[in-house]
């Protein structure tokens, strides 16, 4: 069945009420029946929930084959916890037919690819899928199609019971003996634990894995002891150097800076750019540099930013400390400046992924967002964005909060160079639609700016501010004129990943890639 972004969704996936994507806000006003976990009562006072090893924790939680384990990715490319747990489950306890429900998976989780190839792990639900896991899933090695969701789509699916977590694992930089967790105060700090919050509340069992046990009560707690079954203390939960980079620096690349300046100009031309406006930006070169130019426009107009959300790193913390933004609230911290600021700098708070981006609650933060600045691997002439699959069709990315912020914000700006190496970023059809074009308003490239024709109001703003803009078709033609038009990818029939829109409908599917023959 063809959906609203023109993708053919196989009918066999449309069962149990599953629908194809119908356009943004299709589910508005509908009801959701939330599920509740079945959890054990610890009525009698306990001295401690500490167990000796991960294997002991798995045994205590009744781990068995066929279960779903959840993980969160705050330790990013430094994460050891998902690998340790899966190794214990598969190698030591001999479990199989497992499903991993992770907020994201990266190259740090490469060892898990082996369990997929062996058929021990048969299901994956994640936002990000990269490295060896992306390769084996693209080759059709996972028994069931992986389900890719946005950061807002995941808590929605958990609350709706579409994914039932048997055991959630919380990688905690600090925990006390009963499981109050924080992202700071230890040796592997990550700051916010926002993505772990929904998991902890909706899982039947919750295991905290920490490398820094602190005195009770570890407060204010990000994940509370009332949801925790067991605490395991290990030598190390992750590699600090890969968890949070040193301060993210604003690019000096003139191309990034030019695009960033144009992003700021577009923002400043709209009526939403007024005192108290709200903002989110990414950490890529031009996205992050937008902070710098935006600050200049704010100074010039003598206005302040009301609040910022994200993924947060140093430059936004700097703005907070300078008093140029009222509040910074985040689900994740990307560098040490942000890690050391959250819940420390006045005005810098933590929030859950549901509060951040869930489309099925009563109004997430993204719905109040004025501007979001996002990157893209590809964007097509209908403004559909791909941030999941590479030009070779292999899974190597993450929707993250991209579709959520794009749909919720008043003005969504995609910033990307027109070409990367010899690939056209602006193209006729993206490999996979991860953010639908009806959510994307403006495209800023190094070769020009294009506005979605769905937004004549923004076109007028740019014209009034004398900001030149062109059609997205002309940008595509320019890109093809430089690097040529690529051949279409060739696919097998079987679906290796289902890309869910944030509202739970099916936006696109990724099929197995057919090996290239010369």
């Amino acid at each position, binding site marked *: 069945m063809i959906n609203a972004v023109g993708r053919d969704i196989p009918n066999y996936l449309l069962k149990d009420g599953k629908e194809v994507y119908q356009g943004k806000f299709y589910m508005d006003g509908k009801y959701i029946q939330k599920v509740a976990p079945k959890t054990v009562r610890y009525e009698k006072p306990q001295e401690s929930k500490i167990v000796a090893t991960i294997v002991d924790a798995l045994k205590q939680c009744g781990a068995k084959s066929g279960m779903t384990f959840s993980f969160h990715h705050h330790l990013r490319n430094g994460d050891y916890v998902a690998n340790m747990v899966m190794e214990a489950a598969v190698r030591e306890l001999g479990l199989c037919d497992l499903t991993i429900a992770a907020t994201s998976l990266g190259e740090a989780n490469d060892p898990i690819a082996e369990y997929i190839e062996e058929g021990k792990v048969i299901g994956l639900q994640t936002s990000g899928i990269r490295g060896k896991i992306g390769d084996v899933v693209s080759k059709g090695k996972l028994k069931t199609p992986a389900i890719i969701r946005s950061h807002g789509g995941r808590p929605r699916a958990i609350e709706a019971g579409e994914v039932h977590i048997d055991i959630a694992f919380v990688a905690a930089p600090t925990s006390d003996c009963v499981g109050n967790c924080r992202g700071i105060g230890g040796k592997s700090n990550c700051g916010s634990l926002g993505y772990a919050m929904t998991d902890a509340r909706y899982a039947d069992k919750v295991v905290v894995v920490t490398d820094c046990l602190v005195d009770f009560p570890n407060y204010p707690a990000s994940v509370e002891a009332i949801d925790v079954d067991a605490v395991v203390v290990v030598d190390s939960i992750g590699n600090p150097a890969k968890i949070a980079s040193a301060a993210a620096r604003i690019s000096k690349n*003139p*191309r990034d*800076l*030019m695009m960033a*300046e144009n992003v700021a100009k577009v923002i400043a031309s709209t009526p939403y750019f007024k005192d108290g406006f709200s903002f989110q930006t990414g950490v890529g070169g031009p996205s992050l540099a937008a902070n710098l130019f935006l600050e200049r426009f704010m100074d010039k107009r003598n206005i302040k930013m009301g609040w910022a959300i994200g993924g947060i790193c140093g430059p936004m913390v700097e703005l907070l400390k300078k008093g140029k933004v009222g509040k910074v609230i985040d689900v994740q911290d990307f560098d040490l400046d942000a890690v050391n600021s959250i819940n420390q700098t006045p005005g810098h708070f933590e929030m859950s992924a549901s509060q951040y981006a869930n489309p099925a609650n009563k109004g997430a933060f993204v719905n109040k967002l004025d501007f979001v600045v996002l990157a893209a691997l590809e964007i097509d002439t209908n403004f559909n964005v791909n941030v999941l699959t590479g030009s070779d069709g292999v899974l190597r990315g993450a929707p993250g909060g991209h579709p959520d912020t794009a749909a919720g914000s008043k003005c969504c700006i995609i910033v990307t160079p027109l070409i990367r190496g010899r690939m056209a970023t602006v193209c006729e059809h993206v490999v996979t639609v991860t953010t639908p074009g009806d959510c994307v308003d403006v495209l800023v490239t*190094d*070769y020009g700016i294009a506005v979605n024709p769905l937004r004549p109001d923004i076109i007028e703003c740019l014209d009034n501010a*004398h900001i030149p803009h062109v059609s997205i078709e002309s940008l595509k033609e320019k890109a093809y*004129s430089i690097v040529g038009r690529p051949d279409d990818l060739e696919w097998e029939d079987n679906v290796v990943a289902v890309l869910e829109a944030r509202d739970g409908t099916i936006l696109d599917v990724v099929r197995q890639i057919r090996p290239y023959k010369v």
Partner: protein
Amino acid sequence: MIPRPRPRRFRLRRTMMFMNAQKPGLIKDAYIYGCDSIMLDLEDAVAENQKDAARFSLYHALKTIDYGNTEVIVRINGLDTPHWQEDIRVCVAGGADGIRIAKCESAQDVITVENAVLAAEKEFGVEEGRTLLMAALESPKGIINAYEICTASKRMFGVAISGGDFRRCMGTHFQRDGVDLLVARGQMLIAARAAGIQCFDTVFTDLDDDEGFEAELLQNKAMGFDGKSLINPKQIRPVHDLLAPTEKEVLWAKKVVEAYREQSAAGVGVFTVDGKMIDIAFIPGAERTLRLAKACGMYDGDLV
């Protein structure tokens, strides 16, 4: 093959950005930054044993990249080197808009280059007189002979001072107040204006000194320069911003040109605008202001 329109001798040239003609990553799309002219360098940026490779890179860039409205100038090697003749053949064959003569010291230098350019135009079937020239004055002799250089050829559209070499010749170095180049800049400006061609200031090399750059720009503007040579895209915006006319200036220029067109159609030569006497002498200045305003996105009328 990208056919370029016939170069215009007089056009807006606020910013001329230098880049090594041998660096594909730089030259493939340098126009995106919005400078008025790009200056592809075959001279100092290219190592002695790479001159030939740089010419090939330059030729293919000129033939395959669509630089659009951005002017494409090439800085050739000095007349005291074995490279300049071949440089000129490549520029003309590739269809560059103009050539910057390095270390120009006399009218004869301009004539020597012009003869070689004409020969190349004939050789490659390029329209004769198409290729423009500008001269870089880099020595005291060049400054002394500025006027004869400026008037040496109909192809000449401007002169520029090259601060590094000139300071070396004079035994001085960069001064924040510009006193090191003050006389040379002044003499070159006077010569260029007397000859009716454009005049460009030297590069500012400290990319981290935003204040110093701005101070130099303000002095350039006060002295009457048309534009400046640049070494990095980040320098473009400040030049365009500082050289932009004020809104008041644009409004005034618009009134003057409109009134002039009206009055001259009615056979009146001298008239007043807002109580000020205006005659034909004011018109080129007012039109220049409007052209500048148009380039800066401050004016979109059809008077210029």
